[in-house]
């Protein structure tokens, strides 16, 4: 069943068209990886879906309903959660308060303090600490936990591994694997191509705001994705 569909989406930063005519669909339970170079429009695309960035034109449907006019906090209540780039935790609040805040605002469901701590043992022992005093990996785990606390139908994960030590990335992904195995619907932006291809069912590659390649993770080779990533061979009629 289609959970989220994006049609002809255009989003701008001032004069710059960051997302150009993007169309895709996301099924319930699917894990979609968005890959592409810096400035390809991945973050902007996620932010428009979450309602943090205004769209210039196009349509976003969630469970069949057009949500373009809904504010970000209403989309959270419908079941869309964004883990923003750079974590953006509330540093003056404790880990637990960050989680509770999301919990009090979101939907009811299986995710609560206990289940989040269970899924992210990394932060269970840090619950009373201010979020500003955490390591990068702990902050990322808290940010993902915070999104899960709203019991989302779809989680938009922006740059999970950016700026983290490899060990921390492994720890975060170990926890994330458990979440993904539970049948969550996820859109993942990830710089690490190998990791993106290994966790995702489907891959969309963006270049300069457009989708230049998409397919299931199984049918796409690493070489194809890399070529699309850098915009190589576009003139030779590569898949677009």
């Amino acid at each position: 069943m289609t959970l989220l569909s994006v049609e002809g989406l255009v989003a701008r930063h001032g004069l710059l068209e960051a997302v150009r005519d993007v169309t895709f669909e996301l099924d319930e339970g699917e894990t979609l990886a968005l890959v592409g170079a810096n400035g390809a429009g991945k973050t902007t695309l996620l932010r428009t879906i979450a309602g943090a960035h205004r769209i210039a034109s196009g349509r976003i449907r969630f469970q069949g309903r057009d949500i373009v006019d809904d504010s970000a906090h209403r989309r959270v209540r419908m079941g869309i959660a964004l883990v923003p780039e750079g974590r953006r935790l509330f540093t003056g609040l404790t880990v637990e308060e960050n989680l509770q805040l999301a919990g009090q605002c979101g939907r009811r469901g299986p995710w609560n303090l206990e289940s989040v701590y269970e899924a992210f043992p990394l932060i269970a022992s840090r619950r009373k600490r201010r979020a500003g005093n955490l390591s990068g990996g702990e902050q990322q785990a808290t940010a993902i936990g915070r999104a899960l606390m709203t019991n989302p139908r779809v989680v938009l994960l922006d740059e999970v591994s950016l700026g983290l030590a490899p060990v921390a990335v492994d720890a975060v992904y170990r926890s994330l694997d458990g979440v993904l195995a539970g049948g969550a619907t996820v859109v993942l932006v990830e710089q690490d191509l190998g990791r993106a291809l290994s966790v995702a069912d489907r891959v969309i590659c963006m270049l300069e705001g457009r989708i230049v390649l998409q397919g299931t993770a199984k049918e796409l080779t690493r070489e194809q994705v890399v070529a699309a990533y850098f915009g190589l061979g576009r003139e030779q009629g590569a898949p677009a």
Partner: protein
Amino acid sequence: MIWANQVVTGILLGGYYALLASGLSLMFGVMRIINLAHGDLAILGAFFTFLVANDLGWNPFLALVIVLPGMALVGWLLQRTMFERSLRSGVLVPLLTTFGLAIVIENLLFAKYGADTRSLGPQIGNLAFDSWKINSQIYIGHLSALIFVVAVGVLGVLHILLRRTPIGRALRATAEDADTAELVGVNSRSVYGIASGIAVAIAGLAGVFLAMRSSYDPYSGPLQLIFAFEAVVIGGIGSLWGTLAGGIILGVAQNVGAQLNPEWQILAGHIVFLAILAGRLMLTAIEERGGLDVFLGRAS
């Protein structure tokens, strides 16, 4: 001993200043609005109470049952109709907006009530002047003590509200990063409305206390705004208990100044405020240059 009396009275007066300042501090902390109409909103609360007390014949304390929710509603409406729009246009516009609001409130009150100086003192009977005698020279006024206790109570309730309740979490998160708060499901518009409502209601309460312990007229607001600013700056922005300390320092300075020379009351407060502000700036400058030793050329 007379000095001790002035200090005690100054501390109690500090409670009033803290009450006045806490709303200003809350609105700045959550919404980043420097509300130049804060003092006038306090005076509006005083006139509102006067109206209820006079027309309905209610005791001013009973009138608060109507006045406080009424002022909270005023705050909420101001947020929805003015602050929200002005905030979208950068930092300067809210400053101009609230400055304009201050002038409008003053002149509307003047048009309706004229320039007469009023007081709610007569309506609260003995409370206005009764006091406990500690010894031959130290007296504690009932009303001053009551204002101090209420101020500490209001700050305590605010503290618990901010630290321990869901709405407090939402307020703190929105204060820190409103965009991200929206992304975890916080309705920042309603949080701003609540913050504004609480801030204006507390301002109104402070105005009522001013009217009980002293007198007021339609143009009393700006001076109260300055006192509130001084208390906030002395105590440090964003700290409720710091605001109480700031209020007390201001109150003591004014009373001690008045004891030195009755004309120096307000002046002494301003001087202490400026001294603390200058001291802060100097400390910051010293730290930026690498600490005291480097600053004084003692570093090896």
